[in-house]
């Protein structure tokens, strides 16, 4: 649910990064944070455990500039990926405007990716959303590792509708901004159509 403020001429939209544990959601946000000009970003908040696993969420506010005199802000959130944090994941999906699914390309994480994708669909439906109607992009992360599943196979399993998808290596930043731009663009096109 985007927030359009005619009084302060601002639009705020919420983007959620979803995916299995250790797939690189937080790393995506950290890269965006590092590479964004100080005036365009707010503080990045990470509610994480002592071992830096996301406990509740990471949060990064970004101000992208103006569209037709309206300041455009995106609030980026990640969910905790570990299976047993499902209750927290549901809460973070509330009011989402666009979703990025970050897949872990390593062969041994294939099942975890599929499980997380099913979990995303279930949790969205519980909030009254359909994934098909939401701005949605997929990122195949960790392409730099040796034991990766071919992209075609990942695409067949995770992206049958062929939404925009990107190969990435979030630690070096490859594909990170491409993914963010794609989902932001889909959200704005959605707003243009006059809401869902």
């Amino acid at each position, binding site marked *: 649910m985007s927030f359009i403020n005619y009084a302060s001429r601002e639009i705020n939209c919420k983007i959620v990064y979803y995916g299995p544990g250790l797939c690189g959601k937080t790393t995506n946000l950290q890269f965006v944070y590092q590479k964004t000009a100080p005036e365009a970003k707010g503080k990045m908040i990470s509610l994480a455990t002592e071992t830096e696993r996301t406990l509740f969420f990471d949060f990064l506010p970004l101000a*992208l500039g103006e569209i037709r005199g309206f300041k455009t802000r995106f609030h980026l959130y990640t969910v905790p990926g570990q299976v047993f944090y499902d209750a927290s994941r549901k809460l973070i999906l509330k009011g989402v405007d666009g979703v990025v699914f970050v897949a872990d390309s390593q062969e041994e994480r294939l099942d975890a990716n599929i499980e997380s994708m099913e979990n995303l669909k279930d949790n969205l439906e519980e909030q009254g959303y359909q994934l098909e109607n939401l701005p949605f992009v997929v990122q195949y992360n960790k392409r730099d590792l040796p034991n990766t599943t071919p992209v075609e196979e990942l695409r067949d399993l995770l992206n049958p509708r062929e939404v925009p998808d990107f190969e990435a290596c979030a630690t070096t930043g490859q594909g990170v901004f491409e993914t963010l731009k794609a989902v932001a663009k889909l959200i704005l096109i959605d707003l243009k159509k006059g809401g869902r």
Partner: protein
Amino acid sequence: MLGPQSPFVMYDEEYKRINAAIEKLLRESNSKSIFLVDKNGQLIAGVGETDNLDTTSLASLTAGNIAATGGLAQLIGEKEFSILFHEGEKDNLHISIVAGRVILLVIFDQRSSLGLVRLRVKKGSEELAVIFEDLAKKGEQQAGTGPESPFAEITDDDIDNLFR
């Protein structure tokens, strides 16, 4: 009522009314600052001593706090916990839900008290609830008409320009 998928729209007139209402609450409750946040973590309005605060983070964490507490409430069979209170050494937070849809955050110190804040928040919430009701009605009325939307005419170039 605001549906889960319709954008939340704020207009000048209601924004002024909301600010006036929370300014009044700020004076009457003797508090330091007051914020209104939507349940998704977006800041709607803020008054009082707001300069040294990271208000964006404040809004997001407040909403996270309410969401987590709401989850806890449902687990034990409650609809929600309508008031949260966090006590600090100097400053305290009083968080409550207004009209079931927005979060009212009051920051106060020893110049006020929990009792006074609770009392004033209760009264102020009723006033705010009326304004949000009007806002929801206005949003519904304007939803069908269309020309109000600043996005109806955005072009691909506008969108691309954001990412230069």
